[in-house]
């Protein structure tokens, strides 16, 4: 049993769950105490000692099933399915199996072990044969071989074509015997179904093995690949995973700021506080009290270009800014293509992801027009410029492709003069700035910071810039 538990811990590790040696030992101590008779207690003992992250509980449960229950569950499900289809009670099903067993004995010629196990529904034997084949395959092949055509190779190893022909032969024999009626029909259907079941089981066992080996990349490794992928190539699936990454990023920033806030507790000597505090030491100033520097929370204004080309970058930026909005005294957000519209209220009323979707869908402005930065900037200046104060960070996300319209870069100059910071994030590569209708060379000098922001890794870096 110990070997099994150690092996299981290795399986967990391969799947990205950190299990240390001391935790492994805890698991043994727990099992010593509880015994291994009760499956529920066994599972609980392993879970509480080996898994320490709430997010890891679900993978643990899955892997536990794969590892300790094997294909038992799959077999149960298949049995139920057959009984349903044939309309048999468990007793009738059993009867039919016995009948088949008798017929198998009468059959001439040797049958392969696998066929026998399959048709007699001998579950232990079936699982043993499949596992054995799997193990041989693993020993011969490299770990990669699991990823490439494992199914075909398993099929050859198990000689599925032989099983198939044997079943056909068996069916032929049944017809020769001349039995008729519903029973025969049922048996025939059972045989057909069994062959399909074998395929299903094979698939199941390959999947389980892949999970155990960690061959199937788990979310986190995909996420790291995602980190360098450009926003513009994101698929729906990527976006969903990206949302997680952004949430994590926000959390990380919050954590770090809470530490930084404490370190910032330097300030001027506070006479009154010091006297009061040191009364307990007879007025000897052991414990110097300093004024805590009051932290002013900055305001943020986000201007997002939501034309198709930069949609994803805008989406993540909006989402990010709103996930950390309690770090700011006020977050106002605007979206623009040719016209600019404020979406702050959307975020107050809806949950972040819905609000982002609503903001991008064109409820506020016409998203099908052509980008016109100049016009959007002018509108912004007219309507919202007074709201900018010396504490405001203005964040613009856009590619600066102005369709040869009037650039109106004077607005940026004005903003830079008034705001605390003006940051431009461009989802286009720096190489292409200024080529074609890109007005970046004109806009960039007016910004405190103008950076390219094409992937989550770059987003990570930029977070440091806009952190209050």
């Amino acid at each position, binding site marked *: 049993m110990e070997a099994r538990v150690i092996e299981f811990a290795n399986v967990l590790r391969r799947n990205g769950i*950190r299990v*240390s040696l*001391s*935790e492994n030992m*805890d698991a043994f*101590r*727990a099992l010593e*105490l*509880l015994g291994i008779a009760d499956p*529920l*207690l066994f599972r*609980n*003992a392993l*879970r*509480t*000692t080996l*898994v*320490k*992250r*709430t997010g890891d*509980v679900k993978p643990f449960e899955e892997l536990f099933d794969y590892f300790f229950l094997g294909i038992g569950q799959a077999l149960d499900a298949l049995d139920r399915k057959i009984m349903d289809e044939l309309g048999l009670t468990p007793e009738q099903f059993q009867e039919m199996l016995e009948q088949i067993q008798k017929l198998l004995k009468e059959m001439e010629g040797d049958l392969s072990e696998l066929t026998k196990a399959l048709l007699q529904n001998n579950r232990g034997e079936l699982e043993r044969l499949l596992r054995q084949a799997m193990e041989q395959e693993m020993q011969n092949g490299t770990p990669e071989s699991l990823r490439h055509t494992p199914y075909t190779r398993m099929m050859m190893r198990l000689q599925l074509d032989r099983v198939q022909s044997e079943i056909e032969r068996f069916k032929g024999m049944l017809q020769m015997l001349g039995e008729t009626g519903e029973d025969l029909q049922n048996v025939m259907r059972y045989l057909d179904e069994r062959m399909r079941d074998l395929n299903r089981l094979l698939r199941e066992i390959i999947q389980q093995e892949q999970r155990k080996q960690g061959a199937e990349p788990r979310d986190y490794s995909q996420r790291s690949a995602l980190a360098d992928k450009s926003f513009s190539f994101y698929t729906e699936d990527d976006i969903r995973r990206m949302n997680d990454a952004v949430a994590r990023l926000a*959390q990380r920033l*919050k*954590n770090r700021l*809470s*530490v930084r806030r*404490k370190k910032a507790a330097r300030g001027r000597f506070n006479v009154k506080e010091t006297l009061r505090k040191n009364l*307990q*030491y*007879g007025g000897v100033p*052991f414990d110097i009290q300093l004024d805590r520097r009051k932290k002013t929370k900055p305001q943020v204004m986000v201007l997002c270009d939501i034309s198709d080309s930069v949609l994803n970058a805008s989406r993540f930026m909006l989402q990010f800014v709103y996930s950390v909005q309690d770090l700011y005294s006020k977050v106002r957000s605007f979206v623009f293509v040719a016209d600019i519209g404020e979406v702050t209220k959307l975020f107050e*009323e809806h*949950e972040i992801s819905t609000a982002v979707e609503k903001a991008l869908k064109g409820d506020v402005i016409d998203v099908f027009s052509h980008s016109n930065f100049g016009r959007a900037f002018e509108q912004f200046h007219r309507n919202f410029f007074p709201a900018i104060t010396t504490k405001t960070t203005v964040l613009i996300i856009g590619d600066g492709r102005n369709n040869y319209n009037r650039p109106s870069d004077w607005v940026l100059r004005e903003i830079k003069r008034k705001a605390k910071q003006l940051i431009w994030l461009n989802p286009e590569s720096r190489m292409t700035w200024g080529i074609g209708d890109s007005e970046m060379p004109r806009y960039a000098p007016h910004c405190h910071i103008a950076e390219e922001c094409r992937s989550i890794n770059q987003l990570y870096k930029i977070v440091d810039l806009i952190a209050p």
Partner: protein
Amino acid sequence: MFQSVDEVISGLAKEKYLCNKNVATVVYLGTSLEKPLLVEGPAGVGKTELGKVLADSLGLELIRLQCYEGLDEAKALYEWEYAKQLLYTQILKDKIGEILQGAKTLQEAVDHVANQDGVFFSDRFLLPRPLLRALLSEKRVVLLIDEIDKSDAEFEAFLLEILSDFQITVPEIGTLKAKHIPLVVLTSNNSREMSDALKRRCLHLYLDFPDPEREKEIIKLKVPGVGNKLADEVVRLLHRLRKLDLKKTPSISETLDWVRALTLLNINELDNELVEQTLSTLMKYEADVRKAHQELKAFLAEKQAQQPSAGGSEKDHLH
């Protein structure tokens, strides 16, 4: 101490705390292996309560340390009682004079004083805070470290020595070892991820909202006067509410408050205006209350749709 998992269940049930086998197994392992329990889960599912109840059911003293940002050793572990030390020096001035009498040089005087400084840095002047109290206690205690996620990373690192070896190092005195290993329960709302080092030393327990049946049992246990029908409806409504996208999901403790309010108002089933007015005990945000109102209406409408037939048959019965 508990002898088996079932004993944990019955022991906690005696203190009016219902738990399932998962929870009981972890508690049992924690008490038997003398490992700290790290309890995580949403707010209001009974994490802190678990610590308290554990102490009650084992008849042990509970020492509680509430964590917050900026909590440091002086408040969690020990502090020197400067005032007392100062006072003692004042009173003992003559005695100190005596000690110094024989000294001819300054060097000698300092040596004389140095020989005595153990007096001033002894247990006598040590003001124990929760952690030290738990370690030095004459009997075994339950140490509840509440909302550990609110504390700083430094404090978490500082806890490691206590959690793994149950000892603490005070520079002036040396290492103090626990007389009895306390049962430690740490709770966390997961507002930040705890370090791996800390997690490694603990058994992990994730507490979630209970299933409807169990929640009903909890309500009946905690609010004795509640009717079966009301409890049933409340639980059904709550499980619907928890599925909504709310700023703050109603917890078990809030549910209990609400049921108490309803029973006080003599309400036996969810159907009238009073119910709507008491929703504020359940929901803590205006936007949430609005959403809950809609859900409540839908819930009542569904209930009504089912009822006429039932009511009709009852009438027939009477005739």
